[in-house]
């Protein structure tokens, strides 16, 4: 009797300490960030690292203040990059999803076109850029086209995989209820493919972001990528960092946004994951 009581006491003593730690993870994370920034600031102030290579956080903050509030020069750059990304990615979705569905559905189309798709996908898309400039000029559209090429294959290939991977038993079940081919496509194959399509879009988004930057690297007079390159050329490293951080932030926000979208479009997927945990 006495033994079981002492075991219980031991358990309750340990428990609150562990629980307290778990609640503190956020606090610990924030503390770590502050620590990193403090060390960073000190190291550059002491001149241990050349501020040309790694400016102090305060210098970066000052540069950010300048471009966002004082000169407001960053906004046109943001707008241009945003346009390139949105148009290029939007076109990739509008073209990639239907083509992916067709290729998934039709063995004939797959046999005819898959080799070309794989060839284009395997080529580093950046290699197309000079050709795109010749065709579309050095303005917005050659960059939109490059972003499009960067994203479209991920979307197409993943959509196709979604269609092909639809469980045959679900299709047969639908057939047993006398569903037509069209009904089967609308009510079974398409919904089943949505997780794949979203996965393809996430991958495509990542590549689109890279392509925005690369396109501006090559030839641009506007855009965040351009701002970064020009700041580098002028050795204005704080401004360079501001540009890079803006792109990082954009990437993170988009990624979060896609996660939220996925949770809304495919609630059943996360429910299933919860259950198996």
């Amino acid at each position, binding site marked *: 009797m006495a033994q079981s009581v002492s075991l219980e006491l031991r358990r309750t003593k340990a428990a609150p300490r562990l629980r307290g730690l778990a609640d503190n993870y956020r606090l610990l994370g924030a503390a770590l960030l502050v620590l990193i920034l403090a060390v960073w600031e000190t190291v550059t102030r002491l001149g241990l690292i050349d501020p040309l290579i790694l400016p102090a956080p305060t210098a970066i903050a000052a540069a950010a203040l300048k471009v966002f509030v004082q000169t407001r020069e960053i906004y046109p750059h943001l707008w241009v990059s945003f346009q390139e990304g949105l148009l290029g990615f939007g076109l990739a979705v509008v073209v990639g999803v239907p083509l992916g569905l067709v290729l998934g559905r039709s063995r004939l189309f797959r046999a005819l076109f898959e080799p070309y798709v794989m060839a284009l996908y395997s080529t580093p898309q950046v290699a197309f850029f000079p050709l795109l400039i010749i065709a579309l000029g050095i303005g917005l559209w050659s960059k939109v086209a490059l972003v499009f090429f960067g994203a479209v294959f991920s979307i197409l290939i993943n959509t196709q995989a979604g269609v092909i991977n639809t469980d045959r038993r679900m299709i047969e079940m639908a057939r*047993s209820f*006398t569903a037509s081919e069209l009904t089967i496509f609308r*009510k079974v194959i398409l919904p089943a493919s*949505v997780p794949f399509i979203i996965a393809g879009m996430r991958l495509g988004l990542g590549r689109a972001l890279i392509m925005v930057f690369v396109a501006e690297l090559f030839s641009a007079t506007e855009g965040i990528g351009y701002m970064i390159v020009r700041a580098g050329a002028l050795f204005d490293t704080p401004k360079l960092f501001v540009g890079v951080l803006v792109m990082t932030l954009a990437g993170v926000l988009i990624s979060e946004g896609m996660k939220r979208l996925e949770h809304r479009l495919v609630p*059943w997927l996360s*429910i*299933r994951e919860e*259950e198996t945990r």
Partner: protein
Amino acid sequence: MVAQVGSALSQPAPDGARPAAVRIDNVSHEFPGSRQRNALPIRALADVSVDVPPQTFVSIVGPSGCGKTTLLRIVDGLVIPTAGTVWIDGAPVTGPARDRAMVFQDADLLPWRTTLANVMFGLEVHGAPRARCEAKAREAIARVGLEGFEQHYPGQLSGGMRQRVGLARALSTDPRLLLMDEPFGALDAQTREAMQEELLRLWEQDQKTVVFITHSIDEAVLLSDVVVVMTARPGTIREVIPIELPRPRWREEDLRGDPRFAEYRRRINALLHESRQPTE
């Protein structure tokens, strides 16, 4: 020669779809062999003939691979046999139709639909107006005892509950013929027994014609009016055994202990054991 399956029932069905009579007429089926290995075609079924009067609950048992599932799919119209015909109330089966419904071993629920939406699927595909789909679906959900779970996703349901959704989906279309392919095969023993009892209760209510495939001899004897025993591949009918146990079966206290039950079990077991000897 057509195997006659007697009907043990004389009660008329309540209003609703009139239960179907099924006649399987000299059905044979071959699957093409693997093209890569230039293999010979696989003879799944050889000259199967069975006559099923309306309102009969027929179970089909047989060794693994004897073609039971293929036969069921042929009756449903999902597979066109290489020889022979299936007649339902005198009309030949040429493809899937609205007057029959199938319950699959894995329920095959659409994971992105809630229970209610899944049960509505059958009628939706038939083109019924939405209000009617929903009303019939709710009715069927109540009949299988899943009230309160309409908004759950399949991922949140247990195996037994998923099977009940599959059953509700089939029932909501008011089929004249119900085809069930080892629906309780993937369930644990206790859930399985509970589901058998529920199925018996449901069947008593409208006594549809049911063709039921199972590996469990006990299940076959418990549920059916007639048990059809098949041979190993290529599957043919070994024997047709009418089950003369009183209905309603779920009222009997532990029917499985009844000596008549044991005798049927013994007979069927003996037949299956024979079938397991290699014949070719």
